[in-house]
């Protein structure tokens, strides 16, 4: 499974992304499990709302953090996210 550059990315409907006050972290929740996210991973996932493909996501993130050269890191993380079922492509 790899990411198709054309497809829009969407956070999984069977997982939940949530800010945890006690941990001061975003986490992914799913049946009987939890993954703690660092800030950049959480920011990527929050933009997976079904309106952007990978390239669009990179543009928006680089703009948000006023930086460039994020593409490879973002792609790598999205592949992991896809393999874990955290995101879907449509």
């Amino acid at each position: 499974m790899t990411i198709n550059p054309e497809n829009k990315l969407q956070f999984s409907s069977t997982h939940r992304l949530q800010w945890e006050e006690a941990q001061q972290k975003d986490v992914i929740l799913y049946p009987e499990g939890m993954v703690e996210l660092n800030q950049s991973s959480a920011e990527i996932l929050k933009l997976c709302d079904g309106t952007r493909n990978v390239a669009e996501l990179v543009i928006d993130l680089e703009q948000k953090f006023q930086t460039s050269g994020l593409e490879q890191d973002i792609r790598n993380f999205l592949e992991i996210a896809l393999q874990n079922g955290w995101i879907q492509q449509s």
Partner: protein
Amino acid sequence: MVGFNKVKITPPRWLLAELTYACPLQCPYCSNPIDYAQHKQELTTDDWKRVLTQARKMGAVQLGLSGGEPLVRQDLEEIVQHARQLGYYTNLITSGYGLTEARILALKTAGLDHIQISIQASSEELSDYIAGTKSFAEKKRVAHLIKKHGYPMVLCVVLHRENIAQMADILNMAVELGADYVELANTQYYGWANLNRDLLLPTRDQFETAEAIAQEFKLQVAGKMKIYYVVPDFYEDRPKACMNGWGTTFLTVAPDGMALPCHSARELPNLDCPNVQDFSVEEIWHESKAFNFFRGDDWMQEPCRSCDEKSKDFGGCRCQAYLLQGDMYATDPVCSKSPKHDLIETAITDANTAAKNVTEKPLIFRNSKNSRNY
């Protein structure tokens, strides 16, 4: 108890709410206490809401609603709704028996996140026999309804000598039912399972054959279905890291309000487990004798005390040490470094003998009549 002030206390993350010991099924491996019939009193809806609120405030985020059969509680929807409002990820752990479509919908509206349904075997005959109740056909129907209404679904099958040879069919059943996760839970020998151990413990051959099938299947379904495999630690060299460390992550509240560091802790002597009707969750977690008892490693004996693996498995399971060798401070006998490791070999040999001698003794089913004998 020693080391009380030295160990850094982390907040609970997992709350297991055992809403009731009532259950229409009679699984002979049930992890409920064998004397559950003596603990009839149940917390009220308001008690549960208070417990959920207090634990959430400390940082608990995963909530398991189990039992017994949690569907027996008519206030289940109200409890789920409260939990969801607090931000818990809510897991309903059910046998599925008696779950109607109307209730699946009501629970969805209340905010339930996930349903774990258990089926006892892949064939109707064996499943109904183990459950002690005709329930297989209904469970399958319920599993389809759970998927129809968009829940992530875990199919849980507890494995033991009677059904472990069905591994391939069990996995096919998981595909047919559309399970997102399959939990292959080798029986853990507490409660009723411990009573029936000679009849439930598979032989090493059976276990290895089944495991190979499960591992192959895992590769086939990668990306589509996830497999949670609970190992039978009798066939391992090291014990499981029980509860991720005592009093570090898990909090179980029993139907009568007793707070337990693990769901079998009721079987341990002199822990004086506190009740949520008398103390707040915060007091229980930080100050109670029970939750501090095996925190850290000052309580350990040799060989654990000077072992370089003690931060990995915390000396194994306290309940297993107690049930197998009568000493809850001892190294879990599953560990090959334990001086009592031969107890495990004996258990396996006894089970193998019993396997060949089918008439020896019957399974003891989990029901109130049998429970009153303990």
